[in-house]
């Protein structure tokens, strides 16, 4: 299998090239590179092979890293609950998958999450938070303020990430718990970590 032949450094280098060309990476703010790169390194370590996502500014670098990796099938979704089915199907076929979404998308998934608990499918879910620290758009607040509770009620272990320094360790530990124990684990990437969405520039 050739999926380990492209080194992580090569993928980052490729991403930088594509970014310089303006093709791969678009974000409305200056997105941090440390935390998405740390998550991607964990994806490589635990062997994530499918990544489902709805396009999102906060996740844009991590999405671009996954798209640049030939070992990962990146699956753009029309709505977040499609990703829950994707995770289950991947697991039936022997592959590990990850989901990336905004906090608003968590609400879209609630009934479909039952699939994960009913069957014991491992799931790692990365949620960029809206509707909290410094949120400009009040319409994001109702869902953002209940996201952690919704995930807990849906059976997820949830870990909140406020500092880039914690991402590698917590994501690594959470991924191991999910895949070693067929558990559902969510990582809440706080608005302080991601950076506030800049509306006025």
């Amino acid at each position: 299998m050739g999926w380990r032949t492209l080194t992580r450094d090569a993928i980052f280098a490729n991403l930088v090239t594509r970014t310089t060309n303006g093709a791969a990476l678009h974000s409305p703010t200056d997105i941090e590179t440390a935390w998405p790169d740390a998550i991607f390194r964990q994806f490589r370590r635990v062997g994530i092979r499918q990544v489902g996502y709805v396009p999102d500014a906060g996740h844009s670098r991590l999405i671009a890293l996954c798209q640049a990796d030939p070992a990962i099938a990146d699956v753009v979704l029309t709505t977040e609950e499609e990703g829950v089915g994707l995770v289950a199907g991947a697991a039936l076929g022997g592959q590990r998958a990850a989901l990336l979404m905004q906090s608003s998308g968590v609400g879209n998934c609630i009934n479909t999450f039952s699939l994960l608990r009913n069957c014991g499918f491992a799931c790692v879910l990365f949620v960029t938070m809206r509707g909290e620290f410094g949120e400009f758009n009040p319409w994001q607040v109702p869902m953002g303020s209940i996201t952690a509770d919704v995930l807990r009620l849906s059976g997820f272990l949830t870990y909140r990430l406020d500092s880039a320094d914690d991402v590698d360790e917590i994501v690594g530990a959470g991924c191991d718990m999910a895949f070693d124990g067929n558990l559902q684990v969510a990582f809440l990437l706080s608005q302080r970590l991601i950076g506030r969405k800049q509306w006025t520039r």
Partner: protein
Amino acid sequence: MLDRRDFVRRLLIDRGNLLVVSGLGASTFDVAAAGDHPLNFYMWGAMGGTAMIGLGLALARPDRRVAVLTGDGDMLMGIGSLATIGVKQPKNLTIVVLDNAHYGETGMQPSHTKSGIDLPAMALACRFAHARAVSRSEEAAAVRALLHDGEGPIFVSARIKEEDVPRVLPLRDGHAIKQRFIAALNSA
């Protein structure tokens, strides 16, 4: 119009290594009635998610053929999945919608297809390689051939009779269904 039990039985005859995902309700009962098999993943809930399980499985196992058998209500609830599948273009995936134009599990209320909403046309618009509607039992052999050899993604709307057939209940324990499927796939 097709007899749903007879049609599904014809699709799954001599199924070989075919991987099958069945949608909640009558589709799961039809697949069970055709003969329980460890490479059946029976859905009992998570309505709208069946086609996407098929996609995840098809991407994970490009060496195997994957068939999703589900109802019109489940397909409509996850209709965006057609666009998502169209983006990925899995050659080994076929979706068969057992379309009676009604929600059978809740009392046979009409579904959108009853009003002429055209699922195969939607699949073609979503870049499925092949899409067709079938309504005669003689066409089952051709659909079966598509499941095994067609270049996907393929979409088939099977127009079945509006009838209530006896329930055939397979395993309900999701962990058991999953583990049995994975064990069989790893050993075959």
